[in-house]
């Protein structure tokens, strides 16, 4: 034992632990991605196969699917750690809890958000999204899913101690997620109309940094309440 672990080292451990756990249970991790692909590929089947009509709404469809897929995975974010007593140990490490939770959220994003971003051009193309909009779609999804992970982290931390948390969680998080959806799909829409998407993208970035600064405090306050029992 070479002395006290630094905050960075502790956060790094949390991050690596979650990747390790995900590797052991990759069927769970794959769920959101499968959902995302299935929803977007089935959307034309469920609605209309006409690419011209699809194209106008493709950005929005990809965005909604990404939003819902992220939500799918959020519910379990803290649950097992609270139930098996890991979380109460984290509260008592003497390390700033907010940073540990942020590291956990980051690994969650790497596991669920990032794959959605990476897959989005393929999925979008299947819906008729033009090549020119790829960059904007990916950038907006990058910011959007990351923000959603933080906001969802707050929601998950609040609802982890209550019954039927999943529905309550979406009730809390979806309203906060609506602006993301609006700006994200507007950015894609703008670029498809040949205009500059920088306005909505900047707003997305602003929301991201806002939630990043609020997230750790709110999450750690919520988790402290949830471990009380």
């Amino acid at each position, binding site marked *: *034992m*070479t*002395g*006290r*672990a*630094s905050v960075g*080292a*502790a956060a790094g*451990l*949390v991050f*690596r*632990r979650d990747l*390790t*756990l995900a590797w*052991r*249970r990759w069927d769970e991790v794959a769920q959101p991605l499968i959902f995302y692909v299935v929803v977007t590929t089935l959307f034309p089947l469920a609605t209309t196969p006409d690419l011209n009509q699809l194209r106008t709404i493709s950005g929005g469809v990809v965005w909604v699917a990404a939003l819902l897929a992220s939500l799918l995975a959020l519910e379990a974010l803290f649950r*097992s750690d609270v139930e*098996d*007593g*890991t979380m*109460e*140990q*984290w*509260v*008592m*490490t*003497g*390390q*700033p809890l907010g940073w*540990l939770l942020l590291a956990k959220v980051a690994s969650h994003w790497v596991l669920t958000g990032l794959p959605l971003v990476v897959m989005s051009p393929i999925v979008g193309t299947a819906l008729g999204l033009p090549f020119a909009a790829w960059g904007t779609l990916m950038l907006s999804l990058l910011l959007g899913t990351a923000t959603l992970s933080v906001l969802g982290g707050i929601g998950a931390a609040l609802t982890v101690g209550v019954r039927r948390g999943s529905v309550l969680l979406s009730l809390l998080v979806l309203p906060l997620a609506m602006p993301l959806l609006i700006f994200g799909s507007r950015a894609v829409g703008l670029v498809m109309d040949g205009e500059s998407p920088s306005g909505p993208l900047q707003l997305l970035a602003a929301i991201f940094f806002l939630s990043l600064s609020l997230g750790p405090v709110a999450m750690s306050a919520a988790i402290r309440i949830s*471990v*009380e*029992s």
Partner: protein
Amino acid sequence: MLPDGARLAAREINAWRGDRHILRDVSFDVRSGEFLKITGPNGVGKTTLLRVVCGLLPAESGEVSWRDRPVQGASDEFHAEMAYLGHLNSLKADLTARENLRFLAGLRQALSDSDVDAALDRVGILSRGDLPARSLSAGQKRRLALARLLLSGAALWILDEPVTNLDTAGIALVEDLIREHVERGGLALAAAHQRLLDDAPMLRRLELQ
């Protein structure tokens, strides 16, 4: 050797669970080199008391102080010096015994692989180090949780029925661990139903009723 002169004091703690007044004016005082054993029948409030001390449950009134400063405002400093073993073992079933230690004890102390192995060896499950915690027997899980304590580097141990699921050798091990820790200048609190260091000189008792 641990820093000396540490003192944990609880003064007139009152705590409620739901609409039951569980703890009524409970006070105690433990110093470096002492072990406080908390006894009492099922449901009397031992776990409640330990969790209040840890700051995991709010007390209605009363104060817990560590090194003569109230814990309330300075919980990170307090937590850095204490380790809690609850009814739950706080293990991740899908991680191996080694990984469990590295990822949980590692949050507090920078650990080398040999530290982890030494702790596993001490609690007698070194040969099971690469099994996922899910495959360990009940007693082996408890031993793994004890290994975490050894690696915490904490001066204050708070143990809730540490000998649960342990065999006779395991109980002797817990007694040895506590004795060594306390003789090194540490403090320990434990709730227990069985005999635990009952004849040792460092023992103090608190009976809840």
